[in-house]
């Protein structure tokens, strides 16, 4: 068991003890258990899953951020993250649609990256909702 806190620039999303944690690290998914070695990693767009002390598995969709682990405390800084029931499927589908359209018209590399990022974010949300339906 270790302490997990998930914070976004707006608010604290979760703060409690958990049994295990899986995050979308910059180099691939990472599993974290108690007494993990000190770690700092980036997070990609993906799914954060943790098992709370009641062995219940909880999933969130994130659009990336950072994780810091030390002294049996894991802190996740996310740009944005939503619990499954917070995801608005129709909105995500609209986003996906818009991002795909944007991809076809963008010229600069920065715009392209941004469009890809928002496409991935939308896809991630949709996939997650479908996965747990």
């Amino acid at each position: 068991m270790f302490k997990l806190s998930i914070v976004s620039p707006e608010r604290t999303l979760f703060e409690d003890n958990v049994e295990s944690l899986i995050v979308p690290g910059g180099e691939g998914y990472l599993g974290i258990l108690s007494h993990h070695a000190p770690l700092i990693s980036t997070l990609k767009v993906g799914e954060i899953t943790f098992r709370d002390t009641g062995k219940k598995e909880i999933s969130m969709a994130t659009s990336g951020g950072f994780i810091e682990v030390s002294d049996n405390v894991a802190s996740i800084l996310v740009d944005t993250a939503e619990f499954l029931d917070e995801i608005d499927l129709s909105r995500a589908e609209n986003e996906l649609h818009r991002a795909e359209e944007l991809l076809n018209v963008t010229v600069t590399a920065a715009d392209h990256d941004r469009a890809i990022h928002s496409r991935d974010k939308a896809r991630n949300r949709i996939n997650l909702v479908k996965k747990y339906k």
Partner: protein
Amino acid sequence: MPTPRDIRKRIRAVVSTSQITKAMQMVAAARLRKAQQMVEQSRPYSEKMRLILEQISSASAEVEHPFFQKREVKVRVMVVFTSDRGMCGSFNTNVIRQAVRILKEPGAENIKLVLVGKKGEDYFRRQSWPILKVYKGLQGRMNLEVVRNVTDYLINLFVSGEADHVQLLCTRFKSMVSYKLGIADFLPINPPKADHVVTRQYIFEPDPKKIFDTLMPAYALTIIQMALADSLASEHGTRMIAMSLATRNAEEMVDTLTLQYNKARQGAITKELLEVVSGSEALRG
């Protein structure tokens, strides 16, 4: 001497004004609470972020990032945070006065302005200083979208070399009645010092440099967000005070007017009585 009717009209006007100021005071109080909450809630994020920054910069001796780059200052950008709406006492006047003071300093000819808030725009539109961009429409609420846009824009200015030094002129919320007005450096960012923290042997994934590259924009974002949150809290705090003063003044005014009204009314009655009495006296005579 105003007639009782006139006075009654004025009393009604003052009462309705005081109702408005009272309502504005309540709204400002609610918004202030929200803004303060915002500051509180975003604190864990920015603190953690700072910690990670410190850890990385102490882990890898040479931290280099475009945001740290100090260079000869040819163009300075000053971001001025004002409110969209007025009725907040001296809040905007103070900010603008300070901005003008800085703009008039010797060597300030290279300053360009980025304005957040409509009041700043209203003033500086009529002045000769160059304005790069205006952000408005916040309506006294925190808006992360706007924060992102402002941050991206400023970063772009700095990285592309259009600006060599970016500063923020904004208020720091201290308490309900006081705030501190100050100018803070935004870009280049001073690399955080990690002398006082215990450095641990962290595993970095991917390498520290890559983490840094993704971390810095997020860090810049939190700086702007904090500045805006502070500015909003100060705005609502000042507005609340200004409106409660206005309400009190209006109440005092109603009191004096009521007194005047009663006197005038009594005077009129006395006059009428006198007329009746002297009239009947004359008849009897």
